């Protein structure tokens, strides 16, 4: 652990311009996370073009603080409107809203804010201690280790996807496939371009991201744009948790934070699953599980501590191995690449200041988030009732500007629109979008590693099962692939016997 580098990064963030980025990033993240229909992924994708002309350090500060803010902001809508502002807050709606409706909205928000803060701090501690050793280990990884790790990540993402594993696989592999048109990096020849010169450069990450996450969401939201959601008002009761409350809920908070961090570290999974796992565990070990879903304090704490903890957890594989821990991390990888920074095990050597900027921002944004949420949640809450018929068209304009700004070409804007429609269709068919984006980001790396590995071994694929790490990753991937089908088969057999 390099405390000198950490303190240097903290001091640099506290300089006026970087602190402004931290401040505005966290605040915007909270507000956007709180507005239903707008997500952190959308905000970060749309902000990315604005960072082109910034110093990479400030760009990282802005984007990471938005990430922290957006995951936290979802709590407000989940509690006051029974609508998760971000998907990560789904579990908070089960207990946050009933508690708010029963006349204790301040208490519900206070529990969530404190749990978010503690979750963020614990995950930050793990991020600080684990990242460097993991990156040192990852420097020993060869092409086959990387290739099998990415394949394992893809299967893992598919296996935890909402709906079915097959749909997760379709989404991830489709994302991989659409990243392949363009000039083949190994041979220099165009492939899958259909003789269309505009495709020679391939499809760019930013228009695909904005289309898949922002435009598809805008189209989906206009389905019920006139619906008025249920709401509970923020009362004047305090949102700060007392010391005795903290003591009473410490075990649940710490346990949920570690669950969230652990799940965040797993490549490609993210906050929603972390929140579900922590909530389920809290319910299973609770002395009063019957209260879950009716306004349970334990439920709110478990969900919020875990979803904020996944932020720090998910940054670990991103920094150490260049593998995204969640969808937002996939966007961050794109952001780093745009700023000519290659995420991965050598990041500590090539861009030490950027790594420490990420780690320091994670801590400072959490502190700032706690400050914002406790002091001004009432004002932030009033923004979530902005009419969507006004908000969505404005976001659509930013989508167009964001896509165009990358290369100053209208082709990217049309690509964005096309992927907006594709994203909307996938969502309607209950095919998750997360694996699509992660597949899109990881496919070039996976193919490059496979091909360079095969060149090293003259076409021999056996290292996938003869080397320890690739063997471990391959076995894990196979088990993850077979497991859902095996359990389904067993369930059907049990059903027939009955």
């Amino acid at each position: 652990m390099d405390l000198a580098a950490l303190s240097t990064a903290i001091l640099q963030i506290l300089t006026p311009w970087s602190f402004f980025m931290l401040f505005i990033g966290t605040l915007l993240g909270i507000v956007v996370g709180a507005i239903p229909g707008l997500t952190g992924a959308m905000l970060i994708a749309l902000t990315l073009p604005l960072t082109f002309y910034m110093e990479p350090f400030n760009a990282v500060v802005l984007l990471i603080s938005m990430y922290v803010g957006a995951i936290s902001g979802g709590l407000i809508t989940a509690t006051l409107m029974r609508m998760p502002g971000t998907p990560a807050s789904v579990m908070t709606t089960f207990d946050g809203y009933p508690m708010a409706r029963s006349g204790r909205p301040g208490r519900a928000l206070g529990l969530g804010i404190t749990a978010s803060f503690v979750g963020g701090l614990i995950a930050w501690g793990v991020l600080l201690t684990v990242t460097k050793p993991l990156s040192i280990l990852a420097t020993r990884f060869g092409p086959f280790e990387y290739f099998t790790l990415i394949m394992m990540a893809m299967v893992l993402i598919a296996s935890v996807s909402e709906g079915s594993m097959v749909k997760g696989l379709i989404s991830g592999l489709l994302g991989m496939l659409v990243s392949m048109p363009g000039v083949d990096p190994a041979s220099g020849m165009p492939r899958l371009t259909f003789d269309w010169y505009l495709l020679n450069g391939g499809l760019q990450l930013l228009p695909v991201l904005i289309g898949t996450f922002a435009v598809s969401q805008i189209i989906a939201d206009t389905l019920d744009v006139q619906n008025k959601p249920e709401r509970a008002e923020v009362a004047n009761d305090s949102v700060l948790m007392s010391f005795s409350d903290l003591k009473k809920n410490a075990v649940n908070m710490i346990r949920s934070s570690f669950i969230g961090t652990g799940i965040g570290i797993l490549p490609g999974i993210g906050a929603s699953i972390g929140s579900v796992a922590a909530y389920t565990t809290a319910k299973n070990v609770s002395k009063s599980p019957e209260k879950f879903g009716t306004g349970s304090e334990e439920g709110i704490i478990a969900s919020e501590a875990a979803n904020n903890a996944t932020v720090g957890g998910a940054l670990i594989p991103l920094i150490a191995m260049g593998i995204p821990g969640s969808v937002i991390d996939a966007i961050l990888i794109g952001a780093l690449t745009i700023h000519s920074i290659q995420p991965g095990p050598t990041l500590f050597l090539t861009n030490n200041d950027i790594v420490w900027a990420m780690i320091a921002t994670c801590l400072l944004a959490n502190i700032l988030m706690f400050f914002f949420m406790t002091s001004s949640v009432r004002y932030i809450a009033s923004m979530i009732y902005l009419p969507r018929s006004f908000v969505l068209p404005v976001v659509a304009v930013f989508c167009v500007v964001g896509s165009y700004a990358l290369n100053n070409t209208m082709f990217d804007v049309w690509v964005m629109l096309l992927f907006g429609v594709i994203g909307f269709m996938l969502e309607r068919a209950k095919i998750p979008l997360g694996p699509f984006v992660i597949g899109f980001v990881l496919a070039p790396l996976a193919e490059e590693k496979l091909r360079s590995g095969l060149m090293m071994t003259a076409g021999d694929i056996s290292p996938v099962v003869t080397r320890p790490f690739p063997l471990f990753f391959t076995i894990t991937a196979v088990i993850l692939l077979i497991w859902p089908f095996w359990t389904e088969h067993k369930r059907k057999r049990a059903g027939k016997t009955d």
Partner: protein
Amino acid sequence: MQRNPITEILVCGFIALICLVFFINAWSLPPGTFEPLGSGPVPLATAAIVIICCLVIMIGQARALIRNGQVERQFRMEFMTRSPYGPLITLGLTVVYVAALDLNVASFGVITCVFLTILIAALENFKLKSLLPAFLVAVVVSFGVEYMFTNVFVVDLPA
């Protein structure tokens, strides 16, 4: 979780079709000269797996639909319970907006202002009391964005 079997069949069919086009195109790629794999096998394998997965979903959903024997009711439930007005108007106007920018019909600020006014008013079902706020928001956002991007962030804008 609410399922949409007909939508799933249609979407998976569409994805399978796209993958088939990719598959055929990848099939014709030449083998590698300096490396064992070449550029074709990875997209070929990827497209093939997606097609198989899509067929699994399509067959499974089609069997379930036939077993239940309520295709018409299911169709009505999936496509006729919610009005497609919002998505259609949003998508349609956005396509027109992007085309207008692409064709340089007017400056960014003017095209955006018209687009925002019409879209906001349309989403508000052209209620009279929403027209003025829609226009005001459109003017502030469109010319504000134009000023901010060209003068503050120094980022080029379309049109």
